[in-house]
């Protein structure tokens, strides 16, 4: 191929970049895990929600590094980047609209569906008993 010589010229830079991105992905994953372990000890819903938000941001950062560097999209020309990224913007609406709808459905049910409302407050007797419940046991067999 005509550009082989140039590829060799960039080969060392390429290897360095791979190692750098690997390190970033590893660190991001470790931070995510640390947040996950930390969250186990936290009861307050507000704080938990905030940590979940941070985890989602870290997830997006990981996605950026995988797509941008491992899949090489960042080094393609602008036309190429746009034809992939612009359609994916549909996800902004997709996620926002559907999660909002789900939340609204829950609020409606908790207001008007007395059975659901009762079920959401009735505790299951004991954890062990649920596992040993006859219908579950039968299903396992």
């Amino acid at each position, binding site marked *: *191929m*005509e*550009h*082989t010589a*140039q*590829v060799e010229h*960039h*080969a060392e830079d*390429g290897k360095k970049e*791979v190692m750098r991105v*690997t390190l970033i*992905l*590893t660190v991001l*994953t470790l931070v*995510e*895990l640390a*947040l*996950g372990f930390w969250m*186990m000890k936290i009861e307050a819903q507000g704080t938990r929600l905030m940590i979940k938000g941070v*985890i*989602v941001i870290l*997830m997006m950062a*990981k*996605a950026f590094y*995988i*797509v941008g560097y*491992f*899949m090489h999209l960042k*080094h*393609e*020309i*602008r*036309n*190429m980047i746009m*034809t*992939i990224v612009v359609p*994916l913007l*549909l*996800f902004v609406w*997709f*996620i926002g609209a*559907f*999660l909002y709808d*789900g939340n609204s*459905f*829950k609020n409606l*049910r*908790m207001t008007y569906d007395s059975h659901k409302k009762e*079920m*959401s407050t*009735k*505790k*299951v007797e004991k*954890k062990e008993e*649920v*596992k040993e419940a006859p219908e*579950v*046991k039968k*299903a*396992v067999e």
Partner: protein
Amino acid sequence: MPDDIFVTEILSINMSTSTTAPVNTKWWSGGKSPFNVEYGKLMMWYFLMSDAFTFGAFLIAYGTTRFATAGWPNPNEVFKSYPFAGENANAPLVFVSIMTFILIISSVTMVLAVKAGQEMNKKAVVNNLILTIIGGLAFLSCQAWEWTHLFHEGAWWGRNPFINADGTQSTTNFTNFFFTITGFHGFHVFSGVIINIVMLIMTLMDKFEQRGHYLMIEKAGLYWHFVDLVWVFVFTCFYLI
């Protein structure tokens, strides 16, 4: 003229990549790919985009259901075991983080295989492809163990032995979504391993040496990275939050 600015920008991007484009390239004047990639690679990107929407639809359906449900099982209670552990194993996040690292590392070896292919280094391509295949098989084994373990706990499509985090009765939505989405991802990993094995055989048969390029490895690489990318989302949505 704005057109000139655009062209200059394109050229400045091109300087940093391996692709050589003639000066004053007009990408949309016809006679060449306006995306400056080979046909098959562009089509792989479009396939992956459609696949992203499939996975996105699954995960958004899961999110919507979770938002529409008052209670949900605690993942740290459900996924707390690991192979060769006793009944009372309590190590949430440990096994799944091993799975995550296996997939990240296999993605790295795949990048190295692609890079070796660009340098026409057959031996390095073979070695890195073998490592990638081993990583993929290790991930699949981990998933097989986890599914078996959950099945023996009484979880499967249509039945859910776990209760909600707040102690209320849970629905089967939890297990249905878990097995469907991790199953769909696992199937992608499986296909990726098969594709990589085909690539390995083709490399060993000198197919790419005869063609003069290893572009096929780049396409397989794109698919494999996508599988890793999806796991980033699945891992976060099911195990962490």
